[in-house]
């Protein structure tokens, strides 16, 4: 099964975001991420608009697995969405 596209919106200081990255790394999942708090203001606003489209509450971590959106460090949901 070809792995769906995985993208993570995170904050560099957030423990749950770190745990999400660690889980993806441990499972050898290929993913991209952005630490939104480290972005310059104009870029941050653009990215926040994208986050709000999939997660109006703008909470982190927000993980996209294909078309699924998982908000918060929810290990079972993440593994299930990845088919692991």
């Amino acid at each position: 099964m070809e792995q769906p596209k995985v993208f993570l919106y995170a904050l560099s200081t957030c423990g749950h975001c770190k745990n999400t990255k660690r889980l993806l790394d441990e499972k050898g999942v290929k993913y991209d991420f952005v630490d939104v708090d480290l972005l310059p203001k104009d870029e941050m606003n653009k990215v926040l608009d994208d986050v709000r489209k999939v997660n109006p509450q703008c909470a982190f971590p927000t993980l996209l697995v294909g078309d699924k959106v998982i908000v918060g460090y929810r290990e079972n949901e993440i593994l299930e969405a990845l088919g692991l």
Partner: protein
Amino acid sequence: MTTPQELYERLKKVNEPKGYYFDNDHEMVMDLLKGLLLNRERYGYMCCPCRLASGDREWDRDITCPCVYREPDVAEYGSCYCQLYVSKEWNEGRIPHLTVPERRPAEKYRS
């Protein structure tokens, strides 16, 4: 400059008597405390490390640690949003460790 260890000891003394304990995962707790110190440096106030700061101290008063959501979150889930502060039951594994959803109203997020 406050070190994470000094912050740990000071906050532990203040919060445990109120029933707010640091999570058993000491490494995560220290990371979160480093995050608080970093946020104070970046923004001038200890914005919650798991929430995006607006940079406006007054606007972010509700998510300045300890956030106003800590009390209801620990009461309902046994943990604050970040899992920095937890209840005794949480640390003793007597309640399930559920993911704490964001209690802050979405409209409070403007950047």
